[in-house]
């Protein structure tokens, strides 16, 4: 990617803001062990340290178990961002491969795959997740990533299939076939770079969705299990104490909103830059 491409991407203030927000959050989350003064799961002082409001010692206050909320939000951010990133990576990879195979194969294979994808898309994702998660209990983080990834590639596969179908008709793909370029190479060099734009855009916007979904299922109690913090389960813990200690839910809530907005801004910027039709 050339410099001019990057300059074009960063031309809009909104895109720069998005990168700033996401970059800052990712950096803070990555450096959480260094930045936070307390362990996120240690109950500091159950006698006098419960539900302290924000102060210099505890900038985000403490929760019912006297744990430092800033530490929990930062460590929760690591989990939430990592889960979102890995599951989006998984889902985009699966979606791309399925979309490519369906698009290239055509015929019955394509019809069957795409009807199955349609059926899967017709089920609201949150119910699909609740059903899947209800079947297993005590899932680890890796299992959660797998499940999130495996249930969210349907949209990507449709998108990639549509792009592959239009690329297949493009003359340079026919020309490359006429010159004996193999299938894998065709995918890697002729198809993928030309569908990279839409894929990157979906992945970026998907990050925001995935953070919301992870927060949602953790809030419902089937996602990341306490005492491991995630933004969703911290909000859940603060829910009952919303009147007495609103900061418990407010701070992770703000973190979620900021992240989702950040990814949306980046996604819009990428779409404007990568989609030739939008120029």
């Amino acid at each position, binding site marked *: 990617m050339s410099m001019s491409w990057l300059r074009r991407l960063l031309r809009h203030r909104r895109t720069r803001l998005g990168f700033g927000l996401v970059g800052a959050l990712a950096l803070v989350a990555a450096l959480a062990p260094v930045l936070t003064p307390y362990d996120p799961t240690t109950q500091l002082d159950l006698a006098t340290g419960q539900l302290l409001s924000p102060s210099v010692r505890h900038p985000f206050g403490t929760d019912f178990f006297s744990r430092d909320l800033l530490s929990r939000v930062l460590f929760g951010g690591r989990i939430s961002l990592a889960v979102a990133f890995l599951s989006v990576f998984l889902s985009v990879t699966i979606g791309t491969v399925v979309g490519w195979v369906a698009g290239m194969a055509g015929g019955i294979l394509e019809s069957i795959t795409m009807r199955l994808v349609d059926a899967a898309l017709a089920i609201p994702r949150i119910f699909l997740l609740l059903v899947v998660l209800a079947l297993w209990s005590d899932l680890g983080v890796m299992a959660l990533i797998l499940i999130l990834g495996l249930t969210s590639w349907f949209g990507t596969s449709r998108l990639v299939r549509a792009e592959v179908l239009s690329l297949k008709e493009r003359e340079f793909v026919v020309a490359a*076939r006429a010159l*004996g370029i193999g299938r894998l190479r065709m995918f890697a060099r002729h198809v993928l770079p030309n569908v990279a734009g839409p894929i990157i855009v979906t992945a970026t916007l998907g990050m925001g969705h995935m953070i919301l979904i992870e927060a949602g299922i953790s809030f419902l109690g089937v996602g990341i299990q306490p005492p491991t913090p995630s933004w969703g389960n911290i909000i859940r813990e603060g829910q009952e104490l919303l009147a007495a200690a609103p900061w418990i839910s407010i701070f992770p809530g703000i973190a979620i909103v900021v992240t989702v907005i950040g990814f949306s801004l980046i996604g819009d910027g990428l779409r404007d830059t990568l989609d030739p039709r939008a120029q």
Partner: protein
Amino acid sequence: MNPLLRVRHLSTNFPTDRGIAHAVDDVSFDLYPRETLGLVGESGCGKTVTALSILRLLEGTSAMIGERSTVEFGGVNLLDLAPEALRRVRGAGIAMIFQDPTTSLNPVLTVGTQITETLRAHRDVSRRDARTRAVDLLRLVGIPDPDGRIDAYPHQLSGGMQQRVMIAIALSCEPTILIADEPTTALDVTIQAQILELLAELKERLGMAMILITHDLGVVAGVADRVAVMYGGQIVEVAQTTTLFANPQHPYTEALLKAVPRLDRPTKRLAAIPGAVPAATAWPTACRFHPRCPHAWDRCHVEPPQLLTDTSHAVRCWLVEEPQRRRG
């Protein structure tokens, strides 16, 4: 001499909402070593579909190839070849270049990458050797500063240069047959001549045979050894270029030649062929040209004329049997 490529009874049909389109219907021809065969006809007469069918590039579309069709190349029928064997023929045995170089080069890959990937698809060469060979190829097709241009993206080159790059890619594995599908149609007239000259020169130098698809009789006259004229998905006349131009037998060929402006023949108004090319879903019965033919009589509506492929001048017309029917 044995032909390099023997196409027999090639038929390609496309199912459409208005019935089956017989885009190519029972096309047979031979291509001999080191020969240039011009495939001429109007838009929609089946020239391109013929070329795409030979290399099986219509697979994955709705196209249906006739059961009797064979394309014999190197002792095998390309139409029954396994995918991997077919892949090895494409590019290395038979290469193809297309009409519009701006769309047939991948916009996101450099010129060098597109040449080397073809090389490496067929030959066991290192990256470095492939690059050296790519520079040589660019020089061969007359691109100035090949060392610099090899890292250029297609959009940084002019149309003529892009077509030279396409030719370099097609020739990279020294194919025995080059199919050029209207290689100059998308280019400026001045560039057209250069590209045709280049193709003719390279064909001689590399000892290839070439199928040159075009609607431009002037192009054929300059480059082709033999010409096959197509109308309505069929070959209607095949002959040596000089014979065809001096003594066209089929009324369609005759009309085409009359429609070409010539410097040695003062013309006020060019002769046009009455009517239009019918749709491929509804070819006229028997002879497909009869509704537009000035000589047509009852037989032409009823009995489809046959083309004899083994004679040196083959014509699909009943006038061959009943020359007295020719009018004017």
